[in-house]
Every structure is written in structure tokens, then in C-alpha cells.
């Protein structure tokens, strides 16, 4: 198995709170990997450290065998990133954003324009390509963000919550593009809350809980005989008790 990403003992604390407490994440090359976990499990922190946006307090990260923090030259050109929160250069139009991103990575302008036009067409953004990003909807922002992350044809793509707040039509476009991308042998790693989506798309799953990886491996191994959602709830130890209290809620009471 050739590994696209391997971390060892990845560790990060914010003040007293340990956000990521020794993560050993392994993602094989060419896989469509899902990183799942409840809110606050450390998914975003882990992805930020892997992509070089947040300095870890301990541990090593290798992408395609190169250390992210000591050998950035051999890493940064080969990864694409879509962080959470989606702050893009708001005062550029969608098209200008892609051109900027391409030129920042040293792609010749003509080639950048060609790729940008294709990406805009595939992402269904042609009509709004000359609008400022600040006026884009969430779905459009995720799409333009993904387009910018793909523009330099990276070998490994990191996406933090790419489907959150995205309408079904845009989500469909995103998954189509990502499927095509992994079929060619490239790697996608994305974090998500949507178990159905992860189950449908991914062939590799890592489950995080409270700063640790509690299970990782091929989808079929992680979920076993259950659905991924059931396996996930067992793994993070959170079977809800929605039966207690709330006696006033429902049609038996009066609205007030």
C-alpha cells in the first residue's frame, strides 16, 4: 500500500485544552477518504496541521513521503486545500479568484485561463463568474473554492466540510468532480458530518473522537455489519437518550 498521507503522534493543544492528542492517520494513495467525528473532535485542527496552516506542537506529517513542515517545497505544490469557513478573497470575482490562484502557483496565464474556463463550466458557475465572491451563496463559494483547489492539479486534496450548507444540485456537481478526480488515482480526504454521504462516496474512513482516531481503515472494515452511522455512534460512545423529560413538548400541551 502506497500512502498519500501519514501522520505520527500529531499533537496540538490550545491553552489547557488538548485539541488533537496523538493522531496517527494513514490514507492510502488513490483513496476517497472520509474523516468523520462529532463537533470538537479535532477534525479541522488535524486538517489545518496537515496542510501547513497550523503549526503542530508535536508529531510528524508526511505527504507522499515528504515532511510537510521541513520540506514544504515538495509538498505544497502537490496538495489542494479547501479549509472550513470559506474565507476567500471576497473582492475578486470568481474568475479573478481562479486566475489569482493559478498565477500564485506559477502557472502561465494562458494555461490558467484555459483551466479556469473549464472549471467554471464544470462547476456551473459560468453565469456568475464575473460577480464578486462576497455576493456568492454558500454552494457557489464551495464550488469556486474547490475549483481553486483543483486548478494546479494537486495529487492530494484536503476538504474541510465541503458539503456543509450546500444545496443538492451543487453537492451533486461537487461529488461528480471529486469522483472523476479519484478515479484517475488522485487522493481526496474530506471531513464531514454526513454519514450517508461518507458511506456513499468513500472507500476509506477514519473516525475521530476527542482528539484521537478511534477507528480507521477501509469502509467495509470500519462499519462491519452495521450502517456507518450505527458504527460511528458506537465508536464515539454517544447513543442519545431522547426519551427523558420534555413532557410538555408535542400536541398534548398548548403553545405559549
Amino acid at each position, binding site marked *: 500500500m502506497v500512502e498519500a498521507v501519514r501522520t505520527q503522534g500529531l499533537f496540538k493543544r490550545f491553552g489547557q485544552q488538548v485539541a488533537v492528542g496523538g493522531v496517527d492517520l494513514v490514507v492510502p494513495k488513490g483513496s476517497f477518504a472520509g474523516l468523520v467525528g462529532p463537533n470538537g473532535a479535532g477534525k479541522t485542527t488535524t486538517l489545518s496541521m496537515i496542510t501547513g*496552516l497550523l503549526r503542530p506542537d508535536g508529531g510528524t506529517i508526511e505527504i507522499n513521503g515528504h515532511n510537510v513542515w521541513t520540506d*514544504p517545497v515538495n509538498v505544497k505544490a502537490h496538495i489542494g486545500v479547501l479549509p472550513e469557513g470559506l474565507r476567500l478573497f471576497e473582492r475578486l470575482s470568481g474568475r479573478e479568484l481562479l*486566475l489569482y490562484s493559478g498565477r*500564485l502557483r506559477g502557472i502561465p496565464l494562458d494555461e490558467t485561463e484555459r483551466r479556469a474556463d473549464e472549471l467554471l463550466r464544470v462547476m456551473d458557475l459560468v453565469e456568475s463568474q464575473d460577480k464578486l465572491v462576497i455576493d456568492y451563496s454558500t454552494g457557489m463559494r464551495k464550488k469556486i473554492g474547490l475549483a481553486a483547489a483543483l486548478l494546479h492539479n494537486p495529487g492530494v486534496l484536503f476538504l474541510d466540510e465541503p458539503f456543509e450548507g450546500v444545496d443538492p444540485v451543487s453537492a451533486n456537481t461537487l461529488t461528480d468532480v471529486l469522483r472523476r478526480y479519484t478515479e484517475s488515482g488522485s487522493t481526496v480526504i474530506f471531513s464531514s458530518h454526513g454519514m450517508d454521504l461518507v458511506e456513499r462516496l468513500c472507500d476509506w474512513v477514519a473516525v475521530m473522537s476527542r482528539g484521537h482516531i478511534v477507528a480507521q481503515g477501509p469502509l467495509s472494515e470500519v462499519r462491519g455489519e452495521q450502517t456507518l452511522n450505527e458504527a460511528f455512534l458506537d465508536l464515539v460512545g454517544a447513543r442519545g437518550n431522547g426519551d427523558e423529560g420534555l413532557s410538555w413538548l408535542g400536541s398534548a400541551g398548548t403553545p405559549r
Partner: protein
Amino acid sequence: MARLGGDAAMTMLFVRLKLRLIRGNLRGDLIKQAGFVLSVLAAVVCALGGFALFGLVRLADPDTALNVGIVVFTAFTVGWIVVPLMIFGVDETLDPSRLALFPLTTRQLALGMFAASATGPWPLASLVVLAGGVAGLAGGAGGVLIGLAAVVLQFALCLVTSRVITTALSGALRSRRGRDVLAVAAVGVVLLSQLPNLLLNQGLPTDLGALLSSTGEVLRWTPPGLAAHAIADGGLVGVADLVVLAGVVALLAWLWIVVLRRALVTPDVSNQGGGTVRRSWIDRFLPKGQLGGVVAKELKYARREPRGRVAWFTAVVVSGIIMFTLNNEAAPVGLFSAAGPACLAALLIGVQSCNAFGIDGRSLWMNAVAFSSGRDLRTDLAGRHLAMAVIAVPVLGVISVAAALLAGNAAWAVPAALTAWGLLGVALGVGAVTSVVVPYTLPERLNAFSGAAPGQGALAFGSSSLGLLVTGTLALPVVLPVLLGVAWVALLAVPYGLLVAWGGRSMAGMVGFARLPSILAAVSRPV
């Protein structure tokens, strides 16, 4: 009666909501708490000082006193219209759309929001200062009695007028375009406040007394004027003034309720797309690759980002003001009066670069994931410098020519411009270093009162004063001789500036690349 009781309870609820918002905003943040304590102390000082000063008007002759009263009352009304517009969004009780889902009658909403906006240190302080009008203007018991009513009505007028305007504009203020326009308008207001200063500096034949009495005469018939006059009159005419004033307040209150009712059911349009932008042809003429990409982006940002526009606008106008004041102070001082304003403008423009990454804010990650060495960061800074030079070099040239013509010798434009350009280079070099060493978050929402995210004010102040100090020191060898009249030194200024800018970029590239994650964190603090 039950309904009245219900209204009172609901009004109290609004007041408590406002108090709770103030408290919640301060929780767990020592700097904010200290800031609030200072603000309360300032409000108390302003209230007492304002009351006392206003009371002293009594010592002037009755006509002058009345005119002062009229002007002060009008100024308060205008202030109440302008200030909430500038800091809209700070106070959640002011935005009716947040309350749209609660089962409230418009009447409850109006009363509640009225009471909520009267709550807080500054509204109470302005009430106290307005009450100073009674001490300053009233004569006899009738005057005091009418005066108290007039002050309450005047206070109500301030609140209601401010409510009508903010509510009517709340839709526009929530939209991106509206806020963009307002951000730039804020600078206009700050500049307008400089107008009297300029007029006085111009030595216009202004007799303060005549100016006051003519202003008072004009404003006498406005609602605030009526209030002030009622206090001074204290008789039947005063009562008539009050009746009219009360009518105006009632009319505005009714108008407010109408606007409020409409605002509650008007959809939020802030997310419905704006227009498109033209594709830029300039890109074709820019350098290829990374450098050109950065220049193109920076030029677009200078044009489209309100904070960018404000910074440029301020730099140019402030130097304009200095230019005129320098040339109106008695004797001509030679080359200094041409090179001085040009250098000042260069400094003001250069200060923008002290926190070069601040305007990118959280989107800086896009650069951070692409940069794989210090060289990339250096190129980024070079692009920013080039973009700034593209705008600043002609601007400084024009300022130099204008200053030289005003100073009476067109030839002075050459040394003035050369020195200013050199100084700009020095400022850019120093700014590159401060940008990577002491970066801080610029707030998204620009208002006239704050230049940094909460808690980073000291950092922002430190960064720009450090930048100015170092720039000044480094630039001294070439700038000082020129300012003292040794014109030929100006020839050295541009090469020197280029050298310092290059050195600054190199140092910033070396230091900054390893610090990229920290820079990213520092410029993306939540605001």
C-alpha cells in the same frame, strides 16, 4: 389598564435585554471590560463637564446664550442621527429584524426599542448635558418648569429621529453595498468635522459672534431650536414652542412605527447578488507569473475594498489639508513647504503597508498553502509594493507639483517628488518587516472609531507607531537635508528608498516564511 401594565413589563424586558447584551459583550474579556469602564467614566465626565459648561452660558448675555443653546441642541440631534449609523450592528437591540419572530405588537416593539436605546452610559450622559440647558438658559420658575419638559422632549426627539433613520436604512445597512457606501461616508463625516478648523485657518473674515447669531437665527425654527427657545422664554411663547415640538416628536414617532412595521416584513436582501465586475485589461500589461498576479489582485483591492479606498482617500485629503495650512502660516519657508506635504503624504500612504496582510485577513490561507519558501513570500511583498507604487507614485507627483506651486516655486516640485518617492520606499521596506513581525486583524466592518480587532488595539497602535518611528529614523539622512533646503540630496532619495524596500522584503521573507501560521492566526482573529 392590563394592557398598559403589559406594555410596561415588555418595555422593562427590552431594557433588561439591552443591559444583558452590554454585560454579555464584556464577559471574559478583560480588555473590553477595562474599555467599558473607561467609556463609562468618560460618559460621566462628559455629562458633568457638559452640564457645567452649558450652565456657564448663563454668564453670557441672553441673546448669545440662547444662540449657543440652539446650536448645542441642534448638534445633539445631528449627533444622534450620525453616530448610531456609524456603529450600527454593535447593538443588537437596534436591529428590528432580530425581533421579527417574537409575538410582539408594533406598539410594544416601538416602546421597547425606544426605552432600550435610552439605556446605556452615553444616552444618559446626553440627557444630563441637555439638562444643562435648563441651568444655562432658564430664568425663573416658569423657565425651569418649561425647561424640564423641553429637555425631555428634546431627548425624545434625539432618540426618535435616530430610530427613524436607522430603521429606515436598516435594510440598506445590512446589505453589502450599503455598508460599503457607509464606510466611505464615515471618512466624509470625519473630514467635515475638520471644516471649521480649515475655515478658521484660512483666516476668513469670521466674526465668531456674528456667525453664531446668524446660525442661531436660522436654526431657531428647527425643532431643537424650538426646545432651546422654550427654555429661554419660559412664558406663553415657550409653551407654544413646546406644543409644536411635541407635535413633531409625535409625528416622528408615528413615522417610526410605520417604518418599523414595513421593515419587519421586508425581506433581507443582503445575500441577493450584486452586479458583475468588468474584466480588467490591465492584467495583460503586468509582469508575468506570481508577481503580476499579486499586483493585479492588490490593484483590484485598492479599488473595491472600502477599507482600501478609505485609506487612500484619507492619505490624500489629509496631505491636502496640511498643504493649505502650511502655506497659510505667515512667512513662506522655502523648499520645506513643498517637500513637507509631499513627504507627509508618502508617510501616510506608507503606513498602510505596516500591516500588509491585515486586509487579506482570513483569506490569507490561500497564499499560505501556495508559498513553499521565503522567496514566494518575498515575491508577494514585492507585488504589494509594486501595486502601491503604481498608485502612489503619480499621486505623490501630483501632490508635489501642487505643493510647489502653492509654495511659489514650480521647480521645487522635482526635489519634493524625489524625496517623497524615496520616503515611500523606506516606509514600504519597514512595513514589510512590521507586517510579518506584528501583524494584526483589521475589522471587517470599518467604523470611524476602531482600527483593529477587539484586544489588538494596542498591537495595532504599536505596529504603526513602530513603523513610523523606524521609517522616520531610516529616512532622516535623505529627507532632513531636503527639508532644510539642500535640494541635491533628493537625487539620493529614490535609490536609497529602493534599497531599503529591497532589504525590508528580504528580511521579511526570511523571518516571515517560518511565521506564516502565526501571521495567519494573527490576521484572522474573530471580530
